[in-house]
């Protein structure tokens, strides 16, 4: 079933390893960094909105 004879063959990709793994590597990079960036932005936004909310309620309470 599996096309490859050894791990070394798999990594070498018939000589095209740099190009194939360069492609998959960029994909993995993007699919890691993008969600992390979105999650981070969410945290920052929530923190900022909470701060603003606290400031507002403090102002209206006074």
């Amino acid at each position, binding site marked *: 079933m599996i096309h490859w004879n050894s791990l070394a063959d798999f990594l070498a990709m*018939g000589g095209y390893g740099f190009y194939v793994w360069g*492609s998959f590597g*960029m994909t993995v990079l993007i699919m890691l960094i*993008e969600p992390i960036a979105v999650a981070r932005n969410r945290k920052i936004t*929530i923190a900022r909105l909470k701060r603003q*909310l606290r400031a507002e309620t403090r102002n209206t309470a006074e």
Partner: protein
Amino acid sequence: MKDRFNLYRFASPATFYPLAGAMIPYFVAVSVVFGLAGLWLGMLVAPTDFQQGEGYRIIFIHVPASWMSMFIYLVMAFWAAIGLAFNTRLSGMMAQALAPTGALMAFLSLWTGALWGKPMWGAWWVWDARLTSELILLFLYIGYMALTAAIDDARRADKAGALLLLVGVVNVPIIYFSVKWWNTLHQGSSVNLAKSTMATTMLWGMLLMAMCFWMYSIAVAFMRVRTIMLERERNADWVKTLLAGGEK
């Protein structure tokens, strides 16, 4: 009758926010399953290509990324039309949430296109019709993101961006046709990045990876739109309740 009523409910950010949040883990899970299946077929099972050796395996990224970059643009244009026609806020938010993912897909398509082109055709960049059109699509994404970022008023940004998307989507076929024309006129030897007849495992690998990318895009777009919703609707009661209740 009940279904139609339910769908309109979710046009409200207050109802869509928890729904999107609940769905994200499922989309992630499905994406991982499709990805593993696609990689299994594409990287471990599919045979060597007769003409291109093992280098062809880049198509398992390149083609899904290209498809997604175009599909996401169409979906954004769809939400743009809905937003302009029905004046719904969520449509504009959804379009803005999709844009960065679409742009990254276009970039990935170009990146993998270059890595494919170098060993096959000897150059990091070949001006073939599809790569050139993909580059222009990336420009269209960047233009949309620049325009919406430059407008402070959220509703004006939504509407202006929506109009730009509709103008863009009408132009995409024109641009593609003109680039194809330009390409056939100027290419001596035909530089053809199209696949030759594909083995079934190759085709299935590609389709499964495309599904993986699609589910991933939905998951990320939903994550992004939730943050946009909190920001835009920050004065609404439901947001204030969420924030007060310790939303993370």
